[in-house]
């Protein structure tokens, strides 16, 4: 059986800070403007579990960073070239990753292993150890992880930390720590605690103490969304939900399961025969995303692009890979949208208007 212990929250944070001796550790910490970001740990006193609000960028972006280089190249004297893939295999730890983001990383792993594997994503991913932290309460009023099945994610992390209900208000906060992989086992060896024979009972106690319902709830099942989305194809709701949309692409950039990309080349100004091909995050909401060389745009209006984005999250990718929805309910796209368009509201309207009849629907 994998190691499972109960210890205090303070000892757990001490341990996380101590892991920096072996590899960089990223943990959600307040930046200069006060917002949380997954930054490298340098100071134990900056670490805490409570007061978590969603980071603007999800932690999984570490596997496809914004300044990514795919390969370096050199033009040779004979006119040919030499190109060498750049693979980042430096070990690192992502700690304090919430269940929605663990779920998103698990889904991104599927995408990047599917078909031709993406070597650049996988190199970073396989060199990374993930320490997840389960949520005892919704992290924001945008959260709807409980409605899309990511709240109880139980895969994808090397270690799961579960905050335990407080028995006594004066007692120190306690955490269940469970190793889930060899890499997790290795790290967890350095954390002392009381061994636990039945960790599932403690996880169940944690779940029982959570508010119910947990976060926002959809007016139907996500299982009904693929068919409802197909039926909604020409619906007015897409115009309604994009009337204010600026097509800025922010929703894509902050989404933990958006991974569309563009590429560009850079050359060294001091030696233009040396350069690199870089990968950039792209956005299916931008107005030139599906434009081909002669100018034809295959998704020319915002409503078509919005529908495409939502169908990727709730229909296309999950059906193709036989997974849960790719929207993990983190609420980031709605929170960061410059004009307050929320994918939760869109999915809700699709279910209300095109889902199977419900009691709510029958009554209205």
């Amino acid at each position: 059986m994998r190691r499972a212990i109960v210890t205090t929250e303070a000892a757990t944070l001490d341990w996380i800070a101590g892991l920096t001796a072996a590899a960089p550790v990223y943990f959600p910490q307040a930046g200069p403007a006060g917002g949380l970001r997954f930054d490298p740990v340098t100071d134990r006193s900056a670490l805490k579990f409570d007061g978590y609000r969603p980071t603007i960028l999800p932690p999984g972006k570490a596997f496809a960073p914004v300044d990514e280089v795919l390969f370096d190249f050199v033009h040779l004297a004979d006119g040919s070239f030499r190109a060498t893939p750049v693979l980042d295999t430096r070990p690192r730890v992502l700690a304090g990753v919430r269940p929605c983001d663990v779920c998103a990383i698990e889904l991104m792993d599927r995408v990047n292993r599917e078909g031709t594997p993406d070597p650049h994503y996988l190199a970073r991913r396989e060199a990374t150890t993930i320490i997840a932290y389960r949520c005892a309460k919704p992290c924001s009023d945008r959260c709807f992880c409980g409605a899309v099945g990511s709240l109880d994610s139980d895969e994808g992390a090397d270690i799961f930390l579960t905050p335990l209900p407080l028995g006594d208000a004066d007692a120190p906060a306690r955490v269940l720590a469970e190793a889930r992989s060899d890499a997790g086992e290795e790290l967890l060896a350095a954390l002392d605690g009381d061994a636990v024979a039945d960790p599932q009972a403690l996880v169940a106690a944690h779940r029982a103490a959570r508010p119910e319902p947990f976060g926002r709830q959809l007016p139907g099942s996500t299982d009904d969304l693929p068919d409802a989305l197909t039926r909604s194809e020409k619906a007015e709701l897409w115009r309604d939900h994009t009337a204010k949309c600026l097509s800025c692409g922010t929703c894509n950039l902050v989404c933990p399961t958006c991974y569309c990309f563009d590429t560009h080349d850079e050359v060294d100004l001091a030696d233009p025969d040396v350069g690199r091909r870089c990968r950039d995050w792209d956005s299916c909401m931008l107005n030139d995303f599906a434009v081909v060389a002669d100018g034809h745009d295959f998704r020319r209006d915002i409503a078509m692009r919005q529908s495409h984005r939502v169908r990727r999250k709730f229909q296309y990718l999950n059906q193709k890979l036989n997974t849960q929805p790719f929207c993990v309910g983190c609420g980031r796209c709605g929170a960061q949208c410059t004009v307050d368009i929320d994918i939760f509201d869109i999915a809700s309207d699709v279910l209300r208007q095109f889902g199977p009849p419900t009691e709510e629907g029958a009554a209205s």
Partner: protein
Amino acid sequence: MSAAHDTHEAAFVPRPARIIEVTPFTDRERFYRLALDRPLGHRPGQFVMLSVLGIGEAPISISCGPREDNILEMVIREIGSLTQVIAKRSVGDVLGIRGPFGSGFDLADFEGRDVLFVCGGLGLAPLRSLILPVLAERERYGKITIISGCRAPDAELYRDELRAWSDLDGVDVIRLVDNTHHQPWDGKVGLVTKPIADLDIDPSRLTAALCGPPVMYKFVVMALAARGVQPDQIFVDLERRMRCGLGKCGHCQINDAYCCVDGPVFRLSDLERLPEAL
């Protein structure tokens, strides 16, 4: 070349391809023959990602039929930032190639059938990768009709080959321009849909392959449907923006299908569930 190219580590890394022939076709399209480090091993209808390192990468259709040597043929239209740079390259220069990518055509779908090719403009370039192997084994197929249309007489691609094909037994080549623009022209005038109405077609024997500008497909499909050609006997070769060829970058997505992996060649009857396709 290096072993790295045989592993998934090099998924995004192009290999060198030296230009051994450049023939101008029109004022903005040129025919290129490239020599690779090893045979490409492609099927008709597949494409490659073509690079100039330091400039960028774009998808380009393969224009030659399957071959055992290391030669690759393509037609490149000077239209974007990359192709403008390629237009300045000449014999001896080296480009980068990844691929081949995509589903392509399966010759078995055409064997024993009358075959109709409908080519609009640059669409002749990818369809030539299917036309050549079909003509090479003429006896395996029924009647062959090639409809090729372009904007104007001076926009015609492969003009010598089109004429040579029309001299072959059992091969009918119909060449059209939208408008002669007062240039000499020995073909017909009109859109590629026009001759379909008058073709001698037995819909139970015919299989069609289409490639052209985005606006062309719906109208050709309607014209073929009017002649009784069944949707499962029509193959379309579609164009989309592409950045990877691996079903990852998202640009070429058509509903839940990836044009670069699931296409670019689709059976029309499979597109009913992909309303974004045509």
